[in-house]
């Protein structure tokens, strides 16, 4: 019965998405269709997917089916197990919230040059692609779904193609998506060449030799890592995510990156099966570097969405750290701790899906209202858009891994797993793991700095430009979308134990080891290993924080109702003797992170430029000062540019073949013939 219901719900989800795609194609000039037909259809599709996943996550069996598509001897296999269900749920949540947010957001495009139908069509295809990826059960349909996801999101990145930056980003995105896909394909190819079949079942049955397994793992890591935004193959991410429409950015950063993580987990933990601890070390190194790199670059950004994109890189690093711990512990013979690491990674995937979607939706609201990307022009939005400000604050707290919100639980679980490293036999490993944890700690602290900067500059203080001054709150749909995510951020921050219980079931399907201890003490307490080792109670922390807020409420009531306290008075802040405060007196984003920039200087390629116009009378007295700071991703210089140069140079060399002279061409033909004759004789 339940198997039937999950199948049915999944089918309904796909059906609705196809209907949405069809409707988008028919939109033409009927723009209201988008608002009243396409987005609701998508929303319900997301809901259906969420329910389908929920049915399976709550312990019912998944399903297994084939579709009459694909190759004659290889129809598309679809299968839903716990892992698929978990990621399908993420997709469902992302879809629901972005379709709540979408109708309000796309009003901006109503009069623009970009066709709305295309947006709807590609969004539907994008979601279909993602859902198919997590359900695919053979390499062929997986690749098709994967590329469908890439291509449709490419169109979404290129949607506002009149800006050259967007075109460039889209190109880069598509290129790297393609390369990544090819690497993944190659990784699957290794299985196929040993097993001769392309179904995941056949893959699972194969026992690869350590070398081939490592090659498959490495290719998979690179391929999926490229999509997920792993350092140093992340370069497309900070370019592409910011330029897509914001609800798409939310889907891309919040959900698509998780789909890449899904692929990696599926490949590593399910298909390869036999894990080696050395892979774990690789993952830990890659993860910590990615996390640290991401956050340091995020810190330096002044474009809101770009900052969020780099922060996605950071969070992917954290997820990889969790995965690395899982592989390491399983490889070293501690499946239970490995499961815990995997739970932490999946939990962080969930957290990141929630808060990054939330933040991108918030950024979208800001963008729609102010038409500004640059936070140097913002400020004081908390007074203009209080609800968005509240939700964004929740997002910022969550992403900074602060209790009692969801980001904290997942990082806490990661720490707890890392601290179990003492039981490992190898001294090197015992040292590596805690150092990774230290990197994680550093990352977390820097992330907090980053988001204080973001929130402080954007929402607090005084508006720095006129457009921002006239910003208004987004539509109710947009607020509902954000509110829902904010609520979930809190919910999953508090209900750590029940969530871990579900995740534990999911993970047990892969590692075979059930982490029962984590939730052994009821829903109130999360005890990953044992209660005397570590415990966390989200609800009680929330209770404590609520008490503080209640105290505020009480004071407020006393103040307003009973007039026991004197009412609050307002007055101008001191402007340091320069008269009233002006927006220019505020700290800028660049100034805010200047101390950190000084500390970690070599990490970035910094281009600083100062302009100074001196007054004519007093040579030492500048009338105007200008300062420009550009941060360039070092991977460009050390990785991408050399590759580009190499290709350009080889192309130039090869171009010498085509001299334009017929006699040269005849000579080629002649020489070819002679050489071949000589070869065979």
């Amino acid at each position, binding site marked *: 019965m339940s198997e039937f219901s999950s199948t049915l719900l999944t089918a309904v989800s796909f059906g609705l998405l196809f209907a949405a795609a069809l409707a988008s194609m028919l939109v033409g000039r009927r723009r209201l269709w988008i608002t009243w037909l396409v987005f609701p259809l998508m929303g319900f599709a997301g809901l259906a997917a969420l329910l389908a996943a929920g049915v399976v996550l709550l312990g019912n069996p998944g399903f297994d089916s084939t579709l009459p598509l694909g190759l004659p001897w290889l129809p598309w296999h679809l299968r839903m197990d716990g892992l698929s269900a978990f990621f399908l749920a993420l997709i469902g949540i992302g879809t629901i919230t972005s379709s709540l947010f979408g109708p309000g957001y796309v009003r901006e495009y109503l009069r623009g040059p970009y066709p709305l139908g295309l947006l709807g069509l590609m969004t539907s295809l994008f979601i279909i692609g993602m859902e198919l990826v997590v359900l695919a059960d053979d390499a062929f349909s997986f690749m098709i779904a994967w590329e469908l996801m890439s291509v449709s999101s490419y169109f979404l990145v290129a949607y506002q193609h009149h800006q050259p930056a967007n075109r460039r980003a889209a190109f880069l995105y598509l290129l790297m998506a393609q390369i990544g896909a090819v690497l993944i394909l190659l990784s699957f190819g290794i299985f196929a060449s040993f097993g001769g079949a392309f179904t995941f079942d056949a893959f699972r049955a194969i026992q690869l030799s350590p070398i081939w397994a490592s090659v498959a793992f490495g290719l998979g890591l690179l391929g999926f890592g490229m999509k997920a935004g792993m350092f140093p193959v992340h370069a497309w991410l900070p370019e592409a995510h910011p330029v897509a429409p914001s609800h798409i950015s939310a889907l891309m950063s919040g959900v698509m990156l998780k789909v890449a993580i899904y692929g990696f987990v599926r490949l590593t933990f399910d298909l390869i099966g036999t894990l080696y601890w050395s892979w774990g070390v690789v993952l830990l190194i890659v993860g910590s570097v990615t996390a640290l790199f991401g956050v340091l670059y995020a810190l330096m950004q002044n474009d809101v969405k770009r900052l969020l994109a780099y922060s996605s890189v950071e969070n992917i690093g954290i997820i990889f750290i969790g995965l690395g711990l899982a592989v390491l512990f399983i490889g070293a013979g501690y499946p239970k701790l490995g499961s815990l690491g995997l739970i932490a990674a999946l939990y962080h995937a969930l957290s990141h899906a929630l808060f990054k979607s939330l933040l991108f939706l918030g950024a979208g609201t800001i963008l729609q209202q102010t038409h500004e990307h640059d936070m140097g022009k913002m400020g004081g939005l908390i007074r203009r858009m209080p609800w968005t400000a509240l939700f964004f604050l929740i997002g910022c707290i969550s992403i900074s891994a602060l209790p009692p919100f969801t980001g904290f639980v997942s990082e806490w679980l990661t720490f707890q797993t890392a601290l179990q490293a003492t039981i490992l036999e190898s001294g090197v490993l015992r040292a590596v793991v805690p150092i990774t944890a230290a990197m994680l700690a550093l990352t977390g602290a820097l992330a907090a700095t980053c988001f204080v900067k973001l929130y402080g500059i954007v929402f607090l203080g005084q508006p720095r430009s006129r457009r921002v001054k006239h910003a208004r709150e987004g539509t109710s749909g947009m607020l509902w979308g954000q509110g829902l995510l904010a609520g979930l951020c809190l919910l999953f921050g508090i209900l750590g134990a029940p969530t871990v219980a579900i995740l534990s079931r999911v993970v047990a399907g892969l590692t075979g080891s059930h982490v029962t201890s984590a939730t052994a003490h009821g829903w109130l307490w999360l005890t990953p290993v044992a209660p005397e080792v570590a415990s966390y109670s989200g609800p009680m922390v929330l209770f404590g924080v609520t008490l503080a807020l209640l105290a505020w409420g009480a004071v407020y009531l006393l103040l307003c109702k009973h007039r026991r306290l004197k009412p609050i008075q307002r007055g101008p802040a001191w402007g340091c003797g320069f008269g009233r405060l002006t927006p220019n007196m505020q700290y800028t984003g660049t100034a805010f992170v200047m101390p950190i920039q000084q500390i970690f200087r070599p990490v970035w390629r910094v281009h600083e430029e100062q302009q100074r116009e001196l007054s004519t009378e007093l040579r030492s007295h500048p009338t105007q000062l200008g300062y420009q700071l550009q941060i360039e991703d070092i991977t460009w210089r050390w990785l991408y540019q050399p590759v580009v140069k190499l290709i350009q140079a080889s192309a130039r060399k090869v*171009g010498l073949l085509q*001299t334009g*002279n017929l*006699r040269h061409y005849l000579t080629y033909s002649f020489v070819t*013939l002679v050489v071949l*004759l000589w070869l065979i*004789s």
Partner: protein
Amino acid sequence: MSGFLDTYAYLTLTEQAILTLAAMVLVSSFALLAQSRVVATIRLFALQGFLLVVVTALVALNTQEYHLFYSAGLTLLLKVWFVPWLLTRQARRLGILRDLDSLLRPGVVLIAAGALVIFCYSVALPIQRFAESITRDAIAISLAVVMLSMLMLITRRKAITQVVGFMSMENGLFFGAVTATQGMPMVVELGVAFDVLIAAVVFGVFFFHIRDSIESLDVDMLNQLTEVDE
């Protein structure tokens, strides 16, 4: 060298004649390669064609494959008369009949041509099954003629001499087909002849197109379409 047998002496007279003619065809190829005057090139080409006609006729006699006489007639018509006539006429109309097509380093080219002949022979040498008959030698010669014609195509700059080279290549093929295999099936022969005819006509048309566009027939000046950075 005790096992040495003068196999040549055991061949029939016709076969000896065929081989002699083959040598002459080869020589004509060399001559084509060395000749730089347009009109002389065309005439040499006609001569080569005539040698082919004779060879074809001899083979036809030798093997009683009488359809080869048709081939011989066709060749006479096409390669000895029509193509040289056409080329001469066009060259005259273009006013290049007496031109020289300067050959770069003729000495080197001729030495290379000699080496090429040896190479062709070494390629044909391992063909075991036909070692006893003249077939193998015929293959070697025709291969050499084809290769020498290619060399001619490479070293010539005039469109018209390139066409002669191209046609001479066809001659080499034809020679191979006749001597080694006693001619191809008739349908193929006819098809080939038809193609040669059309090709000759199209070539004729092209000379004028080329002259109209670059005011010369120097193929080295046809170099607009290139991928090399200027």
